[in-house]
């Protein structure tokens, strides 16, 4: 260590700050000392150099003060003459001075007002520009999922028929047997809720589509119009004993999906099942084609990734099951075993099951 480094200034400054902190903690440096340190200099306003820290406040004070000039000279002999001369000049120039003063006062007043306006409105046309940005952002988020699309003809053309959908959900029913409070996240037309009712399982649904929710309610089902994440957040810990959600995940941003899984882990009682179904992008005709038939789909979720989401949020006994066979397949009825294997592989890749569900359980 050189002589120059003999004092560690950073350590000293830190020690000084620590001493001040200890004085505060001990109560010695309390409100009274604070007031002492803030005592203004008596006999006039604060020092101008300090006022520069609050220029608008200071300007208001300064504009409110009167300026007085004392024309009296203190010189012994010449003094009275100088005083008379000054007074005379002031009298002669008074209309000029008054005119200037009046104009300056107007300028000051306007400047102060303009500064006040500016300080409250940090940037010119700020509100207008912010409004424009908000409008563009809203438009972007709507366009991304085609909210302008005519939904009824779309649903008529592309939605699956209720009977098929119900049949696809049936294999999951045993998982929910004996449960009392199962949530169907994205209950849509109420197909799963009806199935649950028929099986005597207590369930309710939420959906963002008000019309669909009303349809469900009119069928005697329990359904509410709500946002999935918000609804889960509003539930108490361990408030549910099962969660089903088919074809919702692909409509969400990945971050939102993870948050929903996290909240689900919180609200599900130990051992409760969670089932989340989505299109299966491992089947190429799905990932490359049918997935994109819905413009409100965000991005396909590979089964391995979905499984990882559940694992990393603490769910156990996780498995993936595929369902909904593709309508067409290449014929595997060929004599050559090698060709047959190849065709089978091609069928699995191109025409495998169209959907999959990832199934997990809240740990006991």
């Amino acid at each position: 260590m050189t002589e120059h480094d003999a004092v560690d200034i950073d350590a000293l400054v830190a020690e000084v700050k620590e001493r001040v902190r200890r004085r505060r903690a001990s109560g010695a440096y309390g409100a009274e000392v604070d007031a002492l340190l803030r005592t203004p200099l008596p006999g006039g306003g604060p020092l101008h150099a300090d006022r520069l820290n609050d220029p608008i406040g200071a300007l208001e004070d300064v504009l409110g003060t009167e300026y007085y000039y004392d024309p009296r000279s203190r010189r012994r002999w010449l003094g009275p003459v100088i005083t008379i001369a000054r007074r005379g000049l002031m009298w002669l120039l008074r209309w000029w001075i008054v005119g200037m003063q009046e104009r300056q006062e107007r300028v000051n007043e306007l400047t102060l007002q303009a500064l006040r306006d500016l300080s409250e409105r940090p940037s010119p046309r700020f509100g207008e520009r912010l409004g424009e940005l908000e409008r563009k952002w809203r438009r972007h988020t709507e366009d991304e999922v085609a909210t302008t699309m005519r939904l009824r003809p779309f649903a008529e053309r592309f939605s699956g028929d209720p009977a098929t959908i119900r049949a696809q959900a049936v294999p999951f029913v045993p998982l929910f047997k004996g449960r009392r409070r199962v949530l169907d996240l994205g209950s849509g037309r109420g197909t799963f809720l009806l199935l649950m009712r028929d099986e005597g399982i207590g369930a309710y649904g939420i959906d963002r589509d008000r019309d669909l929710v009303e349809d469900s309610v009119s069928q005697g089902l329990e359904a509410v119009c709500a946002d999935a994440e918000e609804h889960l957040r509003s539930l108490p810990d361990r408030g549910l004993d099962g969660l089903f959600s088919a074809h919702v995940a692909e409509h969400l941003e990945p971050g939102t999906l993870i948050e929903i899984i996290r909240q689900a882990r919180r609200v599900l009682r130990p051992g409760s099942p969670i089932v989340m179904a989505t299109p299966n992008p491992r089947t190429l005709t799905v990932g490359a084609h049918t997935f994109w038939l819905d413009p409100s789909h965000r991005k396909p979720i590979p089964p391995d990734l979905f499984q990882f989401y559940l694992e990393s949020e603490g769910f156990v006994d996780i498995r993936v099951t595929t369902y909904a066979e593709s309508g067409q397949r290449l014929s595997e009825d060929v004599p050559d075993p090698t060709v047959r294997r190849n065709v089978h592989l091609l069928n699995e890749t191109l025409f495998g099951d169209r959907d999959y569900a990832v199934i997990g359980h809240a740990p006991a």
Partner: protein
Amino acid sequence: MTAIHQFHPTLAPGDAISNHVLALAARAREWGHESHAYAVDVKPGVATEVLPYRRLFRAVKPEDLLVLHFSMGHEVFDQLVKLEARKVLVYHNITPPRYFVGINPHASAHAQMGLRQLQAIAPRIDLAIGVSEFNRTDLERAGYRNTARVPILIDWKMYDVAPDPEVLRHWETRPTLLLFVGRISPHKRQDELIRLLGYYRRCIDPEAELVLVGNHRDQPQYYERLTALAAQLGLADAVTFTGSVSTAELVAFYQIGSCFISLSEHEGFAVPLLEAMRFGRPIVAVDAAAVGETLGGAGLLLPQRDVAEAAEASSLLLERADLREAYQTKATARLRDFDTEVIARQTREALAL
């Protein structure tokens, strides 16, 4: 041989600029030059060594060197820069007008005029010397092309006087004595030093006192408000304003002061920091303008003005002998940079004499 003429509007005994001017004049004579100091306002005590400024207009010859010391505006500068001679400006800095606004309109207007004049005379100056790097940078900003940094010439021998016995007797038995040396002026923030004493007495040592050594003639309004502040905080008996002091009195105050504290916001050089080092006083200073530069690590430099922290810092130094010793070692080394001979040589080189 080149004659060296120096000018500063005011020359008075005891102030740093006058000391510098007179020390340089003495040196120049040692180097074999004819050398005189001139002023408009000559205060009693220096009269025999200083000539009235009007003599300059007759005395200066084209081969001479005219050294203009600038710390305030004055109409005489406008005339002097027209003289035919090599002209060197030594800049001691002008206190920014904002410190006087609303408290001393006269000083504020004067400072404003000074800053304007500094720019206006730049084209007529051959070399501009800043007494600190801070000042030299200011000169560049004011439009000076040829600049140099040469510190103030301090004649250290002048401090080799016996301390004033009256001061010693009066203060010797006193407890912690916080000391600041510098004329009473808003930019030196003596008001904050008074508040600091308030903190010190409440939180650290109820017996502590503050001595403010410095002339208050130029800032009567601020001085009056300072005394009112001390009274309001119940510190009237604990704060001493010495007014102008003799060298012997100054030496005595440096000897009895426990710690030198500077909360000043503007210093072009700050000679008292070096004086405090010369007398082995521990130093706490808030970094501002040229303070850090002059201190050169030989005192506890606080990065920002926080009164409570400055008080705790001085108490820390007073508690810790090892720290005081470390700083004193640094101070001894730092003072070598401002040794009279070293600076005289630098000055001579800069002035090309």
